[in-house]
């Protein structure tokens, strides 16, 4: 490697690094002064957001940044004394610079297609968390005022995980702890179940036995029935269960006035248990609920109901869960089409800890001529949105699946962002574009197809290549090796060239957009010519001339 090549590499790379750092600092200062959304004022996440925004901004400005550095190199650096040797020729600076240019274009491709979308996603997550934190303390205060100390503490902990220095939050935290301590001391020792102080019982049999011994025969019945269903041949369980059934049968006599009622209870419980064992949770829930409503004293039924509810919450939900999370920030007014042919308008979507909650959904089956239907709640469950009006679990008939479930074309994270098209577009990496474009278009989103998107982005990469070579050529032809640039001119250069690079890049990409626009006329002339191919052919021709112009520069000075 010749000395000049080494010099080229060191000057250009050092200049690129230094100017990128300067650009980043300038953008950091700019965003630090201009990020003024109310939820960010005093937020512990603000600095992280400013940092990411500045990095994203700097990467977004890579094309004019590269252009500026190359103009500077060919205009100033390569005229300095380290390059004034006898062996100097234009090719000795042109070739390494060209290689660096190609590497920088690769970096820009990676940045545009992958890195910037990742940063966009990170920024959005930070913004969401900042909005959540902004609401956390007032919500915790509200819950505290209502005497819901444990819930208040849980929300406050979310805040304190990020910021331990907020005085309001700390004061509230101390008050809640105090209130919780007072609450726990109000319980007298005799009211505390003895079993809780001992080591927790591990198996259903042990729990059942403990309940039997303490006289809770219905609780014992529940656990022993569960134990027997797991170990059907176990004699010990069978015996204890038989004894428990005897006890409960005699107790049932005092609960049920007639024999018919007793039969009803026993038959329904047996059916409900059979549903439960077969995994028919909705049917089991309906029966257990009915029995529980009639005989709330039966502890075994209550326990079965709780168990069924637990199973159902894996595939269904209840509105109280929605109300609990309604204080969180949301993505509002999202409209999209689903696979069932419905147009859905959701007033609020809340993503929280891997779940997605949908509030106030308005649906209309397009082309069906039906009525607009409103649903207060929806939750993302098992690859679709379950809709709900009532505060209970109800099995949906096969024929009504379309009505009770929304099956979007895309996962819920993308659905939530559909209300802000530009935000969603910025977050899509190339891979996501390829995977999701068709589905997003079917969802109703106005976006470029994949070839059109790549053709549009190609304008950015060709802009760097073509403009850098042409402006470097002009800079080289107008250089002076006799003197360092006069101060006044240097100032003009440093002020004007970044702006020139910026405007030239925008004009070039606007020209590329014009090519995309003209493609419709090309279709008329050449039939089914791909927009990407059309743009690449034209850009390749322009690049060829730019390369030719650059390489035709002479080594000497007039």
């Amino acid at each position: 490697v010749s000395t000049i090549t080494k010099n080229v590499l060191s000057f250009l790379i050092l200049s690129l690094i230094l100017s990128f750092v300067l650009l980043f600092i300038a953008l950091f200062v700019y965003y630090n002064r201009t990020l003024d959304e109310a939820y960010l004022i005093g937020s512990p996440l603000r600095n992280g957001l400013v940092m990411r925004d500045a990095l994203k901004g700097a990467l977004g400005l890579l094309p004019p940044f590269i252009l500026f550095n190359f103009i500077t190199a060919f205009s100033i650096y390569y005229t300095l004394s380290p390059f004034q040797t006898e062996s100097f020729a234009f090719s000795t600076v042109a070739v390494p610079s060209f290689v660096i240019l190609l590497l920088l274009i690769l970096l820009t491709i990676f940045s545009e297609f992958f890195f910037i979308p990742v940063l966009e996603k990170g920024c959005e997550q930070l913004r969401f968390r900042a909005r959540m934190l902004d609401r956390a303390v007032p919500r915790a205060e509200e819950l505290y005022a209502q005497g819901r100390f444990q819930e208040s503490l849980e929300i406050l902990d979310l805040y304190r995980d990020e910021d331990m220095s907020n005085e309001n939050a700390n004061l509230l935290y101390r008050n809640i702890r105090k209130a919780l301590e007072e609450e726990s001391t109000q319980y007298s020792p005799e009211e505390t179940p003895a079993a809780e102080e001992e080591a927790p019982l591990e198996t259903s049999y042990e729990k059942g036995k403990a309940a039997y011994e303490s006289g809770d025969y219905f609780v014992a019945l529940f656990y022993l029935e569960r134990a027997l269903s797991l170990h059907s041949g176990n004699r010990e369980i069978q015996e204890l269960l038989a004894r428990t059934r005897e006890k409960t049968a005699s107790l049932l006599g005092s609960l049920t006035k007639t024999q018919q009622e007793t039969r009803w209870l026993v038959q329904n419980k047996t059916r409900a248990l059979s549903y439960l064992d077969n995994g028919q949770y909705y049917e089991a829930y309906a029966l257990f609920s009915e029995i529980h409503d009639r005989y709330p004293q039966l502890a075994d039924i209550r326990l079965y109901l709780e168990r069924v509810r637990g199973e159902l919450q894996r595939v269904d939900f209840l509105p109280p869960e929605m109300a609990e999370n309604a204080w969180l920030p949301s993505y509002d007014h999202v409209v999209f089409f689903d696979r069932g042919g419905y147009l859905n308008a959701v007033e609020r979507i809340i993503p929280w800890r891997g779940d997605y909650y949908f509030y106030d959904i308005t649906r209309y089956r397009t082309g069906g001529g039906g009525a607009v239907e409103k649903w207060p709640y929806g939750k993302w469950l098992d690859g679709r949105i379950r809709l709900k009006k009532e505060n209970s679990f109800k099995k949906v008939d096969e024929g009504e699946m379309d009505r009770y479930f929304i099956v979007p074309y895309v996962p819920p994270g993308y659905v939530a962002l559909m209300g802000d098209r530009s935000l969603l577009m910025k977050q899509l990496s190339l891979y996501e574009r390829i995977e999701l474009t068709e589905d997003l278009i079917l969802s109703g989103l106005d976006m470029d197809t994949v070839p059109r998107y790549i053709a549009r982005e190609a304008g950015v990469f060709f802009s760097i290549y073509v403009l850098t070579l042409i402006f470097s050529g002009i800079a080289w032809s107008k250089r002076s090796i006799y003197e360092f640039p006069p101060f006044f001119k240097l100032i003009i250069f440093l002020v004007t060239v970044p702006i020139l690079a910026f405007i030239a890049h925008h004009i070039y990409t606007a020209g590329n957009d014009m090519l995309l626009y003209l493609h419709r006329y090309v279709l008329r002339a050449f039939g089914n010519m791909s927009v990407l191919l059309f743009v690449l052919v034209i850009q390749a021709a322009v690049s060829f001339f730019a390369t030719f112009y650059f390489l035709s520069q002479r080594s000497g000075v007039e």
Partner: protein
Amino acid sequence: MKFLARTTLKIILYMILFIVPITLGVALFSLVDKGTPLFNIGVRNVLGEARGLFVPSLFICYLFSTLLVVSLIDKMRVKSLFALHIPPILVGVIIGAVFALMQREEVPLPVSRGGTRVGYATILKRNALVDTEKYTFYLGTEGDTNALYVYSKEDASLAVDESVRFDREIRLDREGRRVVLQPGGGSRRSYSIPFRELVSYEGVLTHGLIRSYAEKLRQVYAKLRARWSALDRRRAGILLGMLLLSILMVTIPLSYWLNDHGWGFSGVVGIFLILGLFPYVVSPILEGINRLSRDPRLLGGYTYLLPAGVFIFLAIVLDVIVSRKGSVR
């Protein structure tokens, strides 16, 4: 003499080279500015718009070509800075003569009269959700059927009409530059959406920096237009000619000055500096002149020439300074 002829020819060649991209650029900018979605209209409409803006585009092209020639000129061949004004003036005379001849033949070029036709298809995007400030709507078209769904963000309501007709359920209010949607027709609720909210100009010269510069340029244009539109045709012609001359006289020594002292790239990029600073410098000067020219006693019947006079005075001062200080290598 040979030098002057070659420089004149160079300016004309640069003008031929740049006139098409500059006119298209100006047309593009104007369309975006008017809220007309470029990607929904035919190329004939774009060309119509460009034709309507030919005169201002020609002026920009003339100024740009002149500055480029001056900033790239070989200084060793320039005998006098004053003589360097002659080629641009010659080109200006040629352009003026062509205009004058065309006007005599009564074939006037339409000035600032865009021929863009704005119809439903231009403004309303079909088969895609369109998000505006207050509403999200969808106009689905399949064969002869048009379905309209409007979601109002204000009250989270969804209005549906699956057999809409244009000019009935959907109306274009061209004067108010808005679309009125009335799903269900008749006495049902209507939704009014300004054109500008319906257009997304993705990536087409929409950066804030570029747009704020355009706004400043428009302010200067409005101030100048207010002056010449109050005059009769002859006086307006004289004023415009003088203004053009004065602008050239100011910018030529400036670009020559930047081209001076060996290191040439500042000269080239200096053009952009001059063009960039142009509206910011001219605007307050025009403001001052406006105040001065309220006194009719100042220049009698020629008060309207005051702006051009001021710029020419500045140009002469600049010429003297640059010719005394500059041209040293």
